[in-house]
């Protein structure tokens, strides 16, 4: 299949154009360097490839190295039909600077090039214009305006891509082409975009309240994950319970009914309840990403993070790590300094990800009273915020140790980041992205949880074949593991739940749900947190368990990505052992202090 590639400087909207053309929803955001992997999809009869952005064809960062190496390889590929260089119309000079390098390299290999001037809706909104006819004549390449965000000009661009001549004889670019002169001659002469940036940055980067605004936004983010999602979670829980009652009514008392109540609605059903939290988290993170504020966060955080051996850019992987550690580990590629990049990717797993949310929610609801300060600050929300904060504190302690121990031969690369224009988040794609993220959470973890809960149910139900857990195979396994849980004041049930959660964290909730489902095989699908309360488990044990889950690295996929990114088996093994021991020690200390 013939190929078409999308290249351009960071944050020029390549991925948004890729999504618009292919109908996919690859991650996009308003900060430089969000695409760190090559993304491929079918478009008409072509394979469309989205490249990570690059400021130059002389790479510095890991994501640029990947982009430039692949670009050079593809230029030699016979099946490459066209190179689409995506330019940011609001930043014509710098876009042209990179576009001319792309044009030169492509011409040398006789490849067709099209310049797509993205974000043209902003040019129109400011009643400005770019002289495309002039540019086209001078450069000798088709130049077309479009807006991947609104869809303006995308059809015309697609037609141009399909119809323009692919046979371009190899030739050198004239030496007199200069981005500055081209931009001056054909681009809009205005500083309107600067005025907008300056006005907002006076507020967001203020020496007096810039840091306070950042902290307030973060506190609001973590509070809202808990408080805003509560009505949606309650609704989902009622739905699951209603369906559970309805379905179990079809079965007479016996093994099938016990299985439906215990394994399906006790295990898997308990887990589904937490999907709204993933939706809210992705939605709020998406607003921060799309607005352009993330780059400002990187600047505000740079100096404090430097004290722990990290970069301001480390905060961007950390923030996306709240959704999932895997894209966050890839996002660390945007960090120029090899040492800071390594420290960032080794500490990303300590950031509280969405898989931890169900565990936090369950235990917080079970052990923390539903009280409010000043009428609107929820105590449970505060504890939730505290757990996220503890994740960060652990990151800083571990980073400091790693900064002291890791020695890199390469010279450290200084911090440089571009400040993108502020943009209003585009709510419809963001909403769809958040729904997709909640669905991915369910569909990725669902089969693992279902499989594990079925095994747990079988082990808990047999050999007696009734609701009495004691004497079951699971009981025997749990008793064997119980000594590990005793220092935390927990019994064998929690031992089994913790043990199974090493497959994936979320399994913890499913396993506990299955236990309580087996015990109350009467069709009563009651909230799991209520059952934990009825079990009279101490708050000290609950908090110790929470602390354990803040730190423990229980995600096989994350370990496998760390292995790939570090090209080492030793690092993920040491990380797994180290974080598990640390988590256990911190949990014991918490329990001892509280008792």
């Amino acid at each position: 299949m013939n190929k078409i590639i999308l290249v351009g400087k960071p944050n020029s909207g390549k991925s948004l154009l890729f999504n618009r053309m292919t109908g996919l929803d690859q991650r996009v955001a308003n900060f430089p360097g969000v695409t760190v992997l090559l993304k491929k999809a079918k478009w008409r009869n072509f394979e469309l490839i989205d490249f990570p952005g690059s400021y130059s064809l002389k790479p510095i960062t890991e994501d640029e190295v990947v982009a430039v190496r692949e670009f050079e390889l593809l230029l030699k590929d016979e099946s490459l039909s066209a190179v689409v260089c995506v330019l940011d119309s609001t930043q014509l000079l710098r876009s042209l600077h990179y576009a001319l390098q792309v044009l030169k390299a492509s011409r040398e290999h006789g490849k067709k090039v099209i310049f797509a001037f993205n974000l043209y809706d902003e040019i129109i909104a400011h009643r400005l214009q770019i002289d495309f006819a002039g540019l086209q004549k001078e450069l000798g390449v088709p130049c077309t305006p479009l807006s991947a965000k609104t869809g303006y000009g995308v059809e015309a661009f697609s037609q141009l891509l399909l119809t323009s001549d692919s046979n371009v004889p190899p030739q050198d670019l004239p030496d007199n082409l200069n981005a500055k002169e081209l931009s001056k001659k054909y681009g809009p002469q205005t500083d309107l975009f600067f005025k907008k940036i300056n006005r907002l940055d006076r507020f967001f980067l203020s020496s007096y309240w810039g840091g306070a605004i950042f902290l307030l936004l973060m506190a609001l983010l973590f509070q809202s994950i808990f408080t805003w999602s509560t009505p949606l979670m309650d609704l989902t829980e009622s739905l699951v319970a209603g369906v559970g009652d309805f379905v179990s009514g079809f079965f007479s008392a016996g093994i099938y009914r016990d299985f439906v109540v215990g394994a399906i609605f006790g295990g898997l059903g308990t887990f589904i309840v937490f999907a709204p939290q993933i939706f809210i988290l992705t939605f709020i993170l998406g607003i921060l990403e799309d607005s352009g504020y993330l780059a400002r966060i990187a600047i505000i955080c740079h100096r404090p993070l430097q004290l722990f051996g990290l970069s301001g850019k480390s905060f961007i992987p950390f923030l996306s790590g709240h959704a999932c550690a895997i894209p966050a580990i890839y996002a660390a590629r945007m960090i120029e300094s090899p040492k800071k990049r390594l420290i960032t990717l080794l500490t990303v797993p300590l950031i509280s990800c969405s898989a931890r949310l169900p565990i936090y929610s369950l235990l917080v609801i079970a052990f923390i009273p539903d009280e409010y300060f000043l009428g609107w600050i929820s105590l449970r929300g505060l504890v939730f915020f505290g757990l996220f904060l503890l994740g960060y504190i652990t990151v800083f302690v571990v980073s400091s140790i790693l900064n002291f121990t890791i020695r890199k031969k390469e010279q450290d690369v200084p911090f440089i980041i571009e400040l993108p224009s502020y943009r209003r988040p585009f709510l419809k794609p963001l909403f769809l992205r958040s729904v997709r993220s909640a669905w991915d959470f369910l569909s990725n973890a669902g089969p693992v949880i279902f499989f594990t809960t079925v095994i747990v149910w079988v082990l808990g139900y047999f050999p007696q074949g009734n609701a009495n857990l004691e004497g079951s195979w699971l009981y025997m396994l749990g008793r064997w593991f119980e000594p590990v849980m005793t220092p935390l004041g927990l019994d064998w049930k929690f031992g089994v739940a913790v043990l199974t959660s090493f497959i994936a964290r979320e399994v913890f909730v499913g396993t506990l749900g299955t236990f309580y489902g087996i015990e109350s095989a009467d069709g009563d699908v009651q909230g799991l947190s209520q059952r934990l309360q009825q079990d009279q488990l101490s708050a000290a044990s609950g908090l110790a368990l929470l602390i354990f889950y803040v730190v423990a690295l229980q995600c096989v996929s994350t370990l496998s990505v760390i292995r790939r990114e570090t090209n080492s088996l030793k690092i993920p093994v040491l990380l797994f052992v180290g974080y598990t021991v640390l988590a256990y020690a911190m949990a014991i200390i918490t329990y001892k202090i509280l008792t």
Partner: protein
Amino acid sequence: MNMWQLKAQQKAKILDFSASLSDIQKMRLVDLGFAKQEIVVCVKRIPFGGPAVYQVQSSMFALEGSIACQVVVELME
């Protein structure tokens, strides 16, 4: 003077780069627009030694001191 010494809202012309700056970093600065004879404005300084925000050509960049101090500039006003 060097670019790091610019105060907020000061404008300067880039004259040269420090000899200790590696070629790859020099090229990157040029790619970003920090080329000789370009006009640069220090838009914002972040407190406690944080990065400084500079406007060059049609873009804004935040640079930390270790690289900004390698750019030799001449104050314009």
